[in-house]
């Protein structure tokens, strides 16, 4: 046999025991289906909300930036053959994330033909906010996980690779970061840099990296102790080569999988800040911001009439809870699949 043919065969991921355990977990299936639903809603948001874009006058800036006229909206945004469809779906202008307002009445209006889920106070269309809010949710979740993961991998990797004093110092810093309530940190950052969705996202990323750094460092130390690392060192590979070629690729898998499951909890946290008024501005397509309309109606009204404007807050809170649930179901199933003992 040719020596070249003797390369170790990697098992295909879909045949692995881990994936089999994942697939057989009914909760994993429910979570995946829910998430698939959210992905579809986010992807087809422009097509779903085309009637709103066509009929509500304040949607004009979005149409202007897309370069279409009001009477062309339905034909353009629901036809995958048109370039505008792809522009609106893949790279919509920021103005499209502003929920169009059908008037300026402070009172919500119940679901009607024109507004299938009703309008909230200030006449913001709720269906529009929910569908485009799905996009905001994915955007916030992925970006925060991405940034904090990048910081965590660099810091945790250095800490595990270098060891010694640096490792000690880094771990003390992460101790402090992990024990300090995130909410308070976001509040300080918002006061100093001004509130907004971007500030909240940066602040969340600045808290989250500590957990990833710690986890990654632990995995690196565990991988470092394995025999193939000793073998690589024994045949004379430099420490940097051993780290980059052998330790790093073997240690990072679990972190990437587990971190990606944090998207849900990040979106829930960010929605909380939007609800408080520190995150997305009023009128932005964000579920937390949409629920904050409810504060006045529920707490302001007398006992006995809390459900007069139910559609204002029940729809977005259901979306938010289902989104968090989808990710947590997946995350739980993934954790179970990775660690058969638990």
């Amino acid at each position, binding site marked *: 046999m040719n020596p070249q043919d003797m390369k170790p065969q990697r098992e295909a991921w879909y045949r692995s025991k881990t994936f089999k355990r994942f697939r057989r977990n009914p909760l994993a299936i429910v979570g995946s289906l829910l998430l698939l639903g959210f992905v579809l809603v986010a992807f087809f948001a422009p097509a779903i909300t085309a009637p709103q874009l066509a009929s509500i006058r304040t949607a004009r800036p979005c149409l202007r930036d897309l370069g279409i006229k009001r009477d062309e909206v339905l034909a353009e945004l629901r036809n995958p053959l048109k370039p505008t469809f792809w522009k609106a779906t893949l790279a919509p202008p920021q103005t499209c994330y502003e929920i169009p307002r059908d008037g300026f009445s402070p009172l919500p209006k119940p679901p009607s033909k024109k507004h299938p889920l009703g309008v909230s106070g200030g006449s913001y269309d709720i269906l529009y906010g929910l569908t485009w809010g799905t996009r905001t949710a994915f955007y916030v979740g992925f970006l925060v996980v991405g940034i904090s993961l990048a910081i965590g991998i660099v810091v945790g990797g250095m800490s595990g690779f270098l060891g010694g004093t640096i490792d000690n110092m880094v771990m003390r810093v992460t101790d402090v970061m992990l024990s300090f*309530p995130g909410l308070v940190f976001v*509040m300080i950052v918002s*006061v100093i840099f001004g509130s907004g969705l971007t500030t909240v996202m940066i602040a969340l990323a600045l808290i989250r990296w500590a957990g990833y750094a710690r986890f990654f460092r632990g995995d690196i130390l565990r991988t470092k102790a394995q025999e193939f690392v000793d073998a690589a060192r024994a045949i004379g590979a430099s420490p940097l080569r051993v780290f980059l070629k052998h330790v790093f690729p073997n240690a990072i898998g679990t972190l990437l999988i587990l971190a990606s499951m944090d998207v849900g909890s990040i979106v829930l946290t960010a929605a*909380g800040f939007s609800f408080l008024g520190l995150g997305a501005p009023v009128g932005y397509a964000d579920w937390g911001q949409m629920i904050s309309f409810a504060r006045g109606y529920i707490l302001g009204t007398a006992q006995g009439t809390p459900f007069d404007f139910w559609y204002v807050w029940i729809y977005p809170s259901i979306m938010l809870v289902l989104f968090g*649930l989808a990710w947590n179901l997946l995350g739980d199933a993934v954790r179970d699949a990775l660690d058969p003992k638990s």
Partner: protein
Amino acid sequence: MFNYIARRLLQIPVVLFVLSLVIMGLMQLLSPQQRAAAFVTSDKQIEHLDQIIEKYHLDEGFLVQYRLWASEVLRGNLGFSRISKEPVLTTVRKRFPASMELALAAFVPIVLVGVWLGTQAATHRDSFLDQALRVMAIVGWSLPTFVVAIWLVAWVYGGLGWFGIGRLPSSLLIELAGGDFRRYTGLFTIDGLLNGRLDIAAEALKRLVLPAAALVIVVSAGIMRVMRSSMLDELGKDYVRTARAKGLPEKTVVYKHARRNALIPVITMAGPMLGRMIGGIVVIELIFNFPGLGEWAAKAALQLDVTTLLAFVMLIGLIMATANLLVDVAYVIVDPRIRYE
């Protein structure tokens, strides 16, 4: 043990010192005018910011500023809160009992519910009960605090008319109690009991049920998950088999032998849980109209009241440091093998 506690207590000022350095460092990103607000002690002074900037050298270097700020703080002047229109320390003294009462009312049920459900799930592993509890825990973990709070206000308070929201107002307290109501602790439930006025304690408790329930729903799910998996770990160990082989009743094995050991990872979770609880309390106080420190801080953040927020951060630092010390002491009580030198 005593030495260890003493040493840890001495560490608390160090933690606060580092925290204050970080805060002051962040403050340097603000303009001198904004920083000046931290030194204002009355409404009138707000009009003379320039004098304050000059007096406290706010346009000078970091070290000069820090020394001056620290000497003010050490003299007990934490600044003037724009939100509550009085010195920060006065507000903290007024509002702390409210938050404390809410936290205490939620803490006991959180631990009991979490530990009990976790034990039940582990002892009935893979049964219907276990599956149901696991799904409940995941759902509970996926519920944002503010959503739970809104649903409770709308359904239970608004729809069913049960319980109450908002803390017992002082004016109502005076009206109910007359002149001879002594405030021992500031916690209305306990004060009511100490004064022998059950009606006041009940009225205060009625208003605590919903906010505390919101916290329990959100926080106990996490404890339950940890408790379940650590209990499963313990039940699979040799000493449990030995205990069963000796013929001990299953109850003794589970509750006396396994559970005590299973509690250790739960205690480790206490720190992150406290963080989640503090975050929850801020949101819940705001929604339930509960005049505690969290509501104050949330309003301060919305109105860019830096002074108030700084005081809040220092206070949280103090609380977290104390809580971590208590966690370490709790370890020793649960597991006598752990020794601190």
